[in-house]
């Protein structure tokens, strides 16, 4: 894409129009993916029915010419799940993008600052420890609280005596906290007497969208939309930060405060996503990089493209997770990692100039 864009002489125009093409393609891809993912399952449903049901349920139009069971399957079972996959995939990708800029490290993902291990501790306390405060929402609440506590802890630990929060300190504090919290999780799991509990913990830590219902969609969707809008508004500062710590200051970014606000936003978003889906790995790491290879590093383009790509990716990963070994289900995190890693390596090898392969 960059090669064709390079021929143009008229300012940033070729790249910009190329980008709207990319966005349109991704939007169409997401629409198609949601439709197809809703069709697929033990009972196959025609694409027309899918959207007729959706239209009927959402607006009350159309007289049902489908069976009640079909309506039930589409609206109560598959749609929430497919949409949740899209929202979580988008959320994790957006957070990954922002965190890679915040800590200026290509290895950063939504869980780099201890969010996943914190959430796991919370989840284990509910699953194996029998902690129940909020009824059916206990697991979600515990995961959110766990992730947030871990995040706050890491932020506090990373602060130097002078009050600065350097990227490296953040990453090191995150790694340390992750190890400590994982140890707590392992300990709690080993103490669990019921093997079924151990299984559910493992399943949860690998991520699953199996419990999706409409109620689970509201908060993550709101967080996704609000968070992405906030990040988009800050994309110039994100670009500056990615270009270098001092550079950002000389371009007018008050880096310490900006980074702290950014991390808090990312922490909240991560916690919200983890609460409804467990810790789904690799999406938040891989999608931002893949997207950058196509649209460049400018966040005004990376953020929307990453959100849409992440959504599509997780929708399909979840389709595989629930159909590959049906009637059993796989944790969706297994799918994203198994399929994602080779794809990512292939991409990295194909683009020789990327990731410090040349020049530098």
């Amino acid at each position, binding site marked *: 894409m*960059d090669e064709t864009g390079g021929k143009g002489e008229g*300012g940033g125009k070729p790249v910009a129009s190329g980008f709207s093409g990319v966005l349109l393609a991704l939007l169409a891809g997401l629409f198609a993916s949601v439709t197809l993912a809703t069709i697929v399952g033990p009972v196959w449903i025609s694409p027309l029915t899918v959207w007729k049901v959706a239209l009927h349920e959402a607006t009350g139009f159309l007289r049902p010419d489908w069976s009640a069971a079909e309506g039930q399957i589409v609206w109560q079972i598959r749609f929430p799940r497919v949409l949740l996959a899209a929202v979580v995939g988008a959320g994790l990708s957006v957070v990954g993008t922002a965190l890679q*800029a915040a800590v200026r490290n290509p290895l950063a993902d939504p869980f780099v600052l201890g969010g996943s291990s914190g959430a796991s501790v919370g989840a284990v306390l509910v699953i194996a420890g029998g902690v129940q405060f909020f009824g059916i929402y206990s697991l979600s609440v515990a995961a959110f609280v766990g992730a947030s506590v871990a995040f706050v802890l890491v932020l506090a630990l990373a602060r130097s005596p002078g009050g600065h929060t350097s990227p490296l300190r953040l990453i090191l504090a995150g790694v340390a906290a992750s190890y400590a919290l994982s140890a707590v999780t392992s300990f709690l799991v080993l103490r669990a007497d019921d093997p079924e509990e151990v299984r559910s913990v493992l399943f949860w830590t690998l991520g699953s969208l199996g419990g999706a219902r409409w109620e689970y969609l509201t908060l993550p969707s709101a967080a996704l939309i609000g968070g992405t809008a906030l990040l988009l508004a800050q994309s110039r*500062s994100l670009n500056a930060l990615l270009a270098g710590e*001092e550079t950002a*200051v000389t371009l007018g970014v008050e880096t310490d405060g900006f980074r702290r606000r950014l991390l808090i936003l990312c922490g909240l978003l991560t916690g919200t996503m983890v609460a409804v889906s467990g810790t789904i790995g690799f999406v938040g790491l891989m999608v931002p990089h893949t997207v950058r290879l196509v649209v460049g*590093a400018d966040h005004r383009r990376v953020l929307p493209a990453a959100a849409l790509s992440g959504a599509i990716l997780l929708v399909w990963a979840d389709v595989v997770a629930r159909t590959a070994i049906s009637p059993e289900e796989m944790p969706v995190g297994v799918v994203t990692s198994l399929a994602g890693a080779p794809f990512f390596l292939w991409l990295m090898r194909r683009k020789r100039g990327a*990731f410090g392969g040349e020049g530098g």
Partner: protein
Amino acid sequence: MRLDVENIVWGADGRKILRGVSLEVGSGEVVGLIGPNGSGKTSLLRCVYKVLEPQAGLISLGEEDVLRSSVRRMARRTAVVPQETPGEFDFAVREIAAMGRSPHKGLFERETAEDREIVDDSLSRVGMLPFAERQFSTLSGGEKQKVLVARALAQKARLLVLDEPTNHLDVGHQLEVLGLVRGLGVSALAALHDLNLAALFCDRIYVLSGGEVFASGTPDEVLRPELIETVYGVASEVRIHPATGKPHVAFLPESLRPRPGPRPDGQEGERGARRSGGASP
């Protein structure tokens, strides 16, 4: 725009790096900052562009109190060509240059035709417009430096601060980059390693040593063998070069040091004492 630095003191971990440095850059003046490694050049520049906060002193740009103003406000007035270059993440050349516009833009503000014009113009002034769509990481060192100068130009600042802008550049690019800065007509403060380049391109030179201003003045006032001997501990010969009309420094290695005998003893001893004093800052 006029820059005034008064009595800046800065240190870290109990070590004083800047011990009351004062300097000024007049409107449209190009001022060089020279001195050995560790003399405080970079720290001083960092204070000027607000990455470091001095413990004492005053910095003003025009009427503005730099230390009290916001980072964003200062970024509209001071542009920096730093030593660091964007690392792992790859931007296109145009995107790097366009970053210069960001201190002028609000949160949701879009890039206007005027912004694009400024960016294009900045790139063409450094001769990098044909490279606009290239990835920054694929450029050579000299090309990268020119793009960073273009970013500074796009910032439309009144003061340009450069930290070793000619590091890692070949002779051609060294002359080109400094010639560019010289031709802009804005005030510039540049830390330079190469004394001859400083002589060629600077109106005035400040010599930093041990966190203090050791000497200042026009290149031919400052660049004298005695001073170079004292500050750098290196023997040299300085001539006004017939072609440039500027002082030219030739450094003499140990083996070519002239006059082992004719010097009075006291001078020899003093030189030795100063050198050992400089070694432990």
